[in-house]
């Protein structure tokens, strides 16, 4: 059977691909488009490592079928730094040592960015609950929360 042809926008770029009905966005990103910044860790929506946004909504790319993305607007970690400059969260994650092995980092950054787009002054509790779907086994989350707080502060100062 012919594969499904999908036209979608990824990080602002028109993209076309062919996929099987069972293929997830994560499968297509990593295997077919070689965009391996989005990480595969659990494939069941329990870890957040494959977080992307679709039409501005934070989702797990392992839980979205590639065939569903026709005419959608997808943002991944690869689109976070703009024109060779870090997003403020990328900068604060580095400054606050908010990553150790770094495998959760792309998903964590995508999720944190989505929070700060809604709320530039989240409490510690709000940050912790927003990021509850992003597992990190290395850091104990302490420095991640602090890096998000620092980024929020910077965003507020520059507003």
């Amino acid at each position, binding site marked *: 059977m012919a594969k*499904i042809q999908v036209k979608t926008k990824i990080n602002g770029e028109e993209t076309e691909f062919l996929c099987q009905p069972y293929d997830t966005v994560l499968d297509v990103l990593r295997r077919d488009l070689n965009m391996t910044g989005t990480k595969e860790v659990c494939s*069941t929506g329990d870890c957040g490592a494959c977080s992307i946004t679709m039409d501005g909504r934070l989702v797990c790319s392992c*839980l979205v*079928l590639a065939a569903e993305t026709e005419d959608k607007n997808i943002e991944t970690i690869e689109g976070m730094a703009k024109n060779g400059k870090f997003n403020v969260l990328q900068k604060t994650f580095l400054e606050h040592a908010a990553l150790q092995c770094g495998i959760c980092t792309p998903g964590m950054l995508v999720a944190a960015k989505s929070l700060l787009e809604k709320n530039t002054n989240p409490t510690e509790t709000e940050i912790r609950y927003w990021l509850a779907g992003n597992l990190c086994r290395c850091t104990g989350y302490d420095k991640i929360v602090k890096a998000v707080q620092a980024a929020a502060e910077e965003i507020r100062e520059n507003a």
Partner: protein
Amino acid sequence: MSEVKFISPETIEQAVDAYSKSSKEGNTKILAGGTDLLVQIRSGISQPDTIIDIKNIKELKEISNDNGSYTIGAAVAGAVLDEEEDFGNNWPGVLEALKLIGSEQIQGRASLGGNLCNASPAGDSVPALIASGATVKIQGPEGERKMPIESFHVGPGKTNLKNGEIVVNFQFPKKQKHSGDAYLRMIPRTEMDIAVVGCAVNVTIENDKCVDARVALGAVAPTALLIEDASKALIGSNFEKKAVEKAALACEAACNPIDDKRGTISYRKKVSKVLFKRALEKAIERAKRG
């Protein structure tokens, strides 16, 4: 797998037509948020040869408010309903139950319709829907029908839907003055777990007296339960200790749980009473406020 079809109809009629035809030939699955279905496909539990994505059907994505009566499309994602400010003021218990399903990422996709049709005994939104008194609108090859939520499930993973029928939306009664609902669940962590027990309470108060009450439990039986004996114990009371205790015992008595990796029978029974009392307290507080 090479035979698998992916369909995304734009009308209910098209969806029902495709669903009833393909169901006769093989295994068809309706795709709403996909947060359960994709996990089942990946693990091999479900291997549909037709997938019908219902998210391009307008009616299933609509939220409407007709003079205080809400209709919520079956495929409306939790994050979307959360942004509908007034819904949460009317049905905070339903919203908090839906919002408890999974992470923010899951919230971007998971819907009331999906949670209902997945028919897990532990689905968080189901007890809250039952307590709210909402009905579900179903459309199939033989037309449209409505059903109270508590009649929807037959057992774990099993529903009363007939061949070709899909869930269209949820219709909520007009919220009564001085009524309030609440949902609480017990999970070992603070997030990301399946409910070990879930309890929803919806009460209406007049002159400090309980004039209406609906209590529902999840994860304590093959399906979510409406605890009618708990309602009886509460209605007419001033929520005095004796009445609350009687209702709590009714909750415990209604439990028919299993021992599994998530909790024991005795644990679930004890917890059902505790959660009922806590949810009741929250519901009363909300009822008094509005």
